[in-house]
């Protein structure tokens, strides 16, 4: 400012009353002081990382908050063909991950997903994303993994033919999960969305029996997901007696509408979800039910909420008890001899190992004994070139097996046996198959499609990979509770789902969980922190001391930073309630 002329006040009157520069200060580009600068960048909300199915949870919660339920539904459907199924049967790891859980209680994400799915009319069509590629993919098994792969591949323009051994599609969703948790009507309607995309589901076709493996090799790619439905035996005396049945087999018969005679007293052996489902189903059929589990309530692997519901419904629990032999009268089971266990040192899963207490045997009368101690895969139909290990097909993160063009997913290929993981594995395989069919390498896109550290895959990131705005997304930086500026949030009660009265749960399979009302949905959607995702809350705009943050204008999303004046003070980043900004070096 060499042409700067000092101001001289000639007299007292001239002197201003207020200490204020005589001229504009726009010349003073305070941006020159800056050595670090703020940046808008969306990070990964912990719910998104926590969803094995790869749902963009934060996004659908936000759309629900704006009452854009159809858009919210489409957002879920972009990632997962089963919002209504998952909204009922998922054990919501997203809510466990939810940062709000450390503040008051997690957002009711699971119930929100259900509401969104149920709200949108079943007439609403899902569009294909790409035109017919001319490629054909065979999918073996129509459980959650197989149907998810089929759905995404059809949307990506490929012809999909699904082979299903049973008479109806759905796999474990239809034959394993009881009606009171997942009404068949809901399942049928979501499967219809997949069929509407042009997917052929060919039922009563079992590989190795009604169709041969070699026939599948005519397809351009194969995805196998035949689950794990071979119930394990305990290996005790008289286990083959009449009145002893496997848990999954029992559930399937009930699901098929077949008559199952249980008698007045049912014993269920096991503590997994199948055991709980079998117990609650048996109770609904009018039998008295006791669950025997060889560890304590603390180690039980079934979802806690299901265990609690079972107990409320009148299922008895006899913990720390292991089966010794089935008691028989002729070839008919009359009871079971059990033995006490105690907890020993932790095993490799971290749970305390049960130790038999010798001499503590006792007898339990039973008209039916349901064995539900786990299920194994049946891999016999697969050719030997597909490598297996410990009963599972060996696959990479995208489901590729040791044979090129053959992919696998769901319970037969992954360790976590539940619906959300199956859906996630189906989607990962769909991405890999699409890349394989297009001759590209999945390794090139893995960084952009994997959300967080637990392997969740994003279809929308895959579709949008390479588009400009995708660069601003951080797919690995997950927002922690400490990253949230809690000054902007107040405690607010979590919406509670109503459940069917206990008195109404006998002799019927009416759905237990009844969902949330729209008001409750709104309450809970508004509780979302939107971790790491800009909501245009204007906090940065308001706090910028240099007024260097400006609206893009005309309802365009986001803000511009005027770096002529941004001093790099970082107040915007510090104040951002949800950590959707960061400072970076010049």
């Amino acid at each position, binding site marked *: 400012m060499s042409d700067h002329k000092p101001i001289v006040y000639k007299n007292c009157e001239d*002197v201003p*009353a*207020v*200490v*204020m*520069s005589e001229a*504009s*200060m726009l010349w*003073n580009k305070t941006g020159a002081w800056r050595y670090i600068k703020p940046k808008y960048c969306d990070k990964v909300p912990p719910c998104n990382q926590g969803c094995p199915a790869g749902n963009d949870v934060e996004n659908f919660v936000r759309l629900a908050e704006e009452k854009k339920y159809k858009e919210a539904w489409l957002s879920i459907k972009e990632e997962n063909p089963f919002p209504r199924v998952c909204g009922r049967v998922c054990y919501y790891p997203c809510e466990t991950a939810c940062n709000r859980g450390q503040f008051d209680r997690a957002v009711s994400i699971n119930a929100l997903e259900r509401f969104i799915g149920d709200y949108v009319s079943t007439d609403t069509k899902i569009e294909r994303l790409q035109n017919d590629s001319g490629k054909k993919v065979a999918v073996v098994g129509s459980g959650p993994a197989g149907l998810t792969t089929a759905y995404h591949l059809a949307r990506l323009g490929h012809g999909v033919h699904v082979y299903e051994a049973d008479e109806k599609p759905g796999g474990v969703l239809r034959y394993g999960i009881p009606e009171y948790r997942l009404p068949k009507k809901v399942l049928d309607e979501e499967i219809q969305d997949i069929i509407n995309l042009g997917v052929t589901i060919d039922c009563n076709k079992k590989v190795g029996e009604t169709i041969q493996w070699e026939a599948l090799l005519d397809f351009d790619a194969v995805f196998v997901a035949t689950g794990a439905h071979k119930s394990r035996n305990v290996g005790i005396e008289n286990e083959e007696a009449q009145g002893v049945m496997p848990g999954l087999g029992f559930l399937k018969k009930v699901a098929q509408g077949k008559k199952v005679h249980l008698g007045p007293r049912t014993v269920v052996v096991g503590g997994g979800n199948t055991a709980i489902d079998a117990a609650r189903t048996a109770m609904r059929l009018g039998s008295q039910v006791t669950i025997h589990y060889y560890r304590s309530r603390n180690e039980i692997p079934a979802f806690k909420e299901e265990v609690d519901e079972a107990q409320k419904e009148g299922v008895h629990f006899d913990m720390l008890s292991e089966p010794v032999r089935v008691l028989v009268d002729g070839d008919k089971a009359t009871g079971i001899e059990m033995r006490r266990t105690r907890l020993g040192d932790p095993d490799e899963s971290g749970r305390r190992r049960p130790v038999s207490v010798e001499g503590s045997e006792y007898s339990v009368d039973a008209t039916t004994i349901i064995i539900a101690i786990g299920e194994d895969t049946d891999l016999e139909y697969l050719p030997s070139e597909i490598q297996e290990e410990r009963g599972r097909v060996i696959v990479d993160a995208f489901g590729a097996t040791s044979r090129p063009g053959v992919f696998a997913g769901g319970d037969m290929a992954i360790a976590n046996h539940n619906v959300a993981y199956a859906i996630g594995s189906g989607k990962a395989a769909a991405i890999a198959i699409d890349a394989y069919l297009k001759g590209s390498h999945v390794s090139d896109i893995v960084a952009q499609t994997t959300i967080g550290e637990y392997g969740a895959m994003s279809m929308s990131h895959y579709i949008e990979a390479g588009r400009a705005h995708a660069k601003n997304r951080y797919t690995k930086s997950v927002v922690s509770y400490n990253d949230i500026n809690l000054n902007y949030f107040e405690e607010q009660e979590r919406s509670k789902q109503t459940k069917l009265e206990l008195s109404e749960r006998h002799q019927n399979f009416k759905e237990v969980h009844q969902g949330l009302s729209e008001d409750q949905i709104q309450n809970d959607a508004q509780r979302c922190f939107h971790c790491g995702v800009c909501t245009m809350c204007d906090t940065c705009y308001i706090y910028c001391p240099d007024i260097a943050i400006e609206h893009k204008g005309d309802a365009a999303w986001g803000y511009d930073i005027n770096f002529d004046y941004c001093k790099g003070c970082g107040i915007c980043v510090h104040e951002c309630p949800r950590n959707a900004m960061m400072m970076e070096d010049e």
Partner: protein
Amino acid sequence: MKKVLMGNHAASWAVKLADVKMIAAYPITPQTQIVEELSEMCGSGELKAKFLKVESEHSAMASCIAASSAGVRAFTATSANGLALMHELLHWASGARLPLVMVNVNRAMAPGWNIWADQSDSLSQRDTGWLQLYVEDNQEVLDTVLQAYYIAEKVNLPVMVCYDAFFLSHTYEAVDIPEKQAVQDWLPPHARENILNTKDPRAFNGLVMPDVYMEMRYKLQQAHEEAVAVVKEAGESFAKAFDRSYSTIETVYCDDAETVLVTSSSTTSPARLVVEALREKGMKIGLMKVRLFRPFPVDDICQVLSGKKKVVVIDRNISFGKGGIFADEIRGAIANDPQAPIIFGYITGLGGRDITPELVEDIVMEAEKNERPERLALWKGLKS
């Protein structure tokens, strides 16, 4: 509309009627209900203002300075140690010539912790360049907060409205609440030059060299001197609009009085009863309530007191090492008057102790009995 309101809520109502756009405050007894009520008014939407929760009184004042610099009406309220924490920023508000309004509910300074009435908190801020008004009842609370904006915006100076803890803050009285429209007609929307303007940004409150600093101080003093007339004009025009008149001082029976009792704030109320009673007994006594403390209305006060025999000042405050502050201010104001009266300065009622009519009468009769005060600071009501 008449409502039975505590003094604190009378202040909240005035803020609402004045269409204040930004309120920043930190709670402190006995001020809390003012801002509590305002936060509810903001929460319900009946007052469209930004209510800013802050971490200290220092931040409250800083926020008000920022809001006022941006050209909106701002408000805060505090008491005692909260006010003391604002001290630095009180200078900034006046030096920047911002028309802020603050209510200070007069409370004793700690230690020992004491939440009761005592004027030492605001009087020890007398040199910060703020206008100060001391009011007597809840109606005057409401009316004076409204007038405070009127005055502040005419002279570009911040105004502090002071009233006694509990005697007013927590005591319910019938208060006439003016109509919103009438207030808007009388108090036009705030419009001011020299505000923050993002299109034409200026540097504010920067370095001022010795060659002009003194002139700026002179102008601030000038503004204070002019403010005396503005306070009167505000009181008169308020009277026209709302039928209740106010000025810098109020006098009762002073014309022919030989002795004038001087009070401020709620102490005036028992003093009124005593003066009335003594008049009935034939004593030539008058009462002067000092409402405006800064600027000190020297001319108005001297006009009343010149030629009187005795002036008895009751101070619920103390400047340690000297004495009662109102008494001292009056001595200073009238010192050069050849007809200056003898001034008795009494200190009493500190930390919320009651100033009863009996006590006031006791003070008056003691002063009446003695020709001159024994010393500058006379204490009344000490345990013997």
